[in-house]
């Protein structure tokens, strides 16, 4: 309420340097209360708010319930699964499932390998997609639209379609036939190197190569998001950098990259966690025993005797525990990163 609105000049009761207290005719508290709270409008709003809250709460429950039940079942002993009265709280709590998965399935080794792989892929993909997205957003060059259509194309082709040929490509890896040529595959006498193709499977190479070229899992989406983000960045920023004598690359490194950190964290979060839980590329490229990765630990440890009445449930519980242990590090990452996830997306203003 402003003192100016009252018809008479207000009576000043107290005045200090910073604040002023004025006396004016005000409707009584009860009247104000009635108008504010005892109206249909307020009732409607209140009902809506309660309904909204309950709805969100319910959906949150639906999302979180499987996690709770998985967590509870991971602590259950063998006997809990044949006991009908046990639902969420185990009667014979035990840590055996965890212990055996760590001891027998090589969880720690898989954790280490996957952390290295996901960190590498996440960082590389974030940077590369940022670069490509920037190129698409800010520079006009011939063939830009066609190239962008190709990015969308890589998104649309289901990767299962390429499963076999992707395996073959990296099993007999060759860059445009150069190795074949140098290795004497075309002409017998012309032989500079000993091999005609490289077997890159069962190493980090296939994923590294795909990441470096922005073709790995869902990279089309990242490029798209980055491009939309950079379209919202005003051109004046770069122009002022050019005026100061920066070239395009230094502008990118010094001005654009620091600016796009929230978006990059978002992309990194996606890239890291989707690489982490990915089972497609890891099973295609890592065919033999040797490199333990997350998909390999989803199996039943031999020391846990599952051959009894509750077998189905018990094995399911063990598999779920594997799943839980796989995502456990991700939960930590998510807790730290989720703030950026939403901020980054909001600032990106993905429009049109």
């Amino acid at each position: 309420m402003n003192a100016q609105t009252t018809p008479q000049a207000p009576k000043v009761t107290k005045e200090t340097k910073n604040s002023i207290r004025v006396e004016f005719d005000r409707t009584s508290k009860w009247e104000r209360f009635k108008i504010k709270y005892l109206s249909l409008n307020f009732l409607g709003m209140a009902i809506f708010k309660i309904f909204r809250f309950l709805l969100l709460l319910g959906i949150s429950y639906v999302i979180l319930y499987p996690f709770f039940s998985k967590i509870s079942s991971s602590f259950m002993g063998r006997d809990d699964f044949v006991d009908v009265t046990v639902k969420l709280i185990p009667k014979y709590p035990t840590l055996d499932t965890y212990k055996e998965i760590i001891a027998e399935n090589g969880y720690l080794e898989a954790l280490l390998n996957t952390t290295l792989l996901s960190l590498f892929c996440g960082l590389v993909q974030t940077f590369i997609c940022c670069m490509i997205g920037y190129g698409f957003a800010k520079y006009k060059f011939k063939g830009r639209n066609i190239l962008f259509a190709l990015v969308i194309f890589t998104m649309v082709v289901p990767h299962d379609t390429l499963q076999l040929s992707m395996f073959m490509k990296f099993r007999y890896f060759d860059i445009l036939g150069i190795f074949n040529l140098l290795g004497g595959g075309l002409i017998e006498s012309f032989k500079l190197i000993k091999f005609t193709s490289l077997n890159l499977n069962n190493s980090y190479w296939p994923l590294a190569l795909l990441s470096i070229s922005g073709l790995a899992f869902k990279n089309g989406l990242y490029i798209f998001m980055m491009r939309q983000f950079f379209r919202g960045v005003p051109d004046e920023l770069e122009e002022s950098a050019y005026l100061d004598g920066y070239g395009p690359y230094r502008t990118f490194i010094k001005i654009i990259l620091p600016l796009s950190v929230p978006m990059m964290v978002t992309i990194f979060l996606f890239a890291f966690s989707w690489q982490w839980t990915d089972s497609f590329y890891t099973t295609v490229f890592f065919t033999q025993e040797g490199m333990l990765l997350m998909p390999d630990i989803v199996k039943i440890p031999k020391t846990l005797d599952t051959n009894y009445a509750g077998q189905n449930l018990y094995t399911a519980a063990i598999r779920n525990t594997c799943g839980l242990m796989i995502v456990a590090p991700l939960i930590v990452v998510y807790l730290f990163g989720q703030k950026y996830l939403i901020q980054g997306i909001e600032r990106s203003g993905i429009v049109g």
Partner: protein
Amino acid sequence: MNNATAAKQAAPKKMRKTASLEKKKARAGWIFVLPFVLGFVILYLPIVFDSIKYSFNEINIQTGGGYVLEYVGLKNYQEAIFVDASFVRTLTSGIKQLIFDIPAIVIFSLFMAVLLNQKMLGRAAFRAIFFVPVILATGLVAEIDAGNQLLDYMSSSESIATGSEQQDNSVAEIITATDLSFLFNNMAVGTELVEYVAGAVNNIYNIINRSGVQMLIFLAGLQSISPAIYESCSIDGATTWETFWKITFPMISPMILVNAIYTVIDSFTSSSNSVMSYISTVYDQAGGNVIASAMSWIYFIIVIAIIGIVAAVLSAYVFYQRRD
């Protein structure tokens, strides 16, 4: 960089300078997208071509390394469509299911985004929870969930104890609505309703799980609508309902198009859908079965057709605010 000498060389040079800046920028653009171009030409294109090639061939991997291709024409395709009994069935039922899911996902995510965009108690917490599935319920976890008996048991222990009433419909269910059906049973409403609600809840879990990214995209879109428009609307006396349909909906319609297409792509290419998992079982059967390639190209063509239809239908209704 421009030192004194450049400054002394006067007007005629100026034109050339600006032109070279354009060229320089075009070149810089190429360099920024170079990784993708190289990767696409060297890796992706051969992979795609190989995949198409394999689908027309018989493949034999030799023990010494290397492989032999034998051209067999359309045999793989014929086999996929006419010989393999379950492929066409899986394909039709899978596509039907997805077509049913896609509007549900888009509508749900729009609805949730509108809710999560409002100011309220615990908004940050709700947002954090809603995006949990984006990060956690993908890939491996989704695969583990897909064949999950435990959760079904957890939520439908009655049916196991009393017989097998519900078991047939609980194969793909991740959460069944025990508590819900328990509640409804106590309220003594008809069993159809109970089943319907339980089914809806089941489906909603799937839908929630798959609508995280869409929700994010919608949220971003909602954030980009100028508050001034809403303000002027409320001054003109529009209700929230009217504002939604007259302002929010048209303004967000480009996002609806983006999300519809994204949803189609995402759900058609996710390895948890039935067609994809069928194709990968075929692939695993014979260790690199080429019929799997043929199948997935058939599937891909159908996906492209559906994306085309969705894009064509939706873009007729999309409203673009004039920019620039």
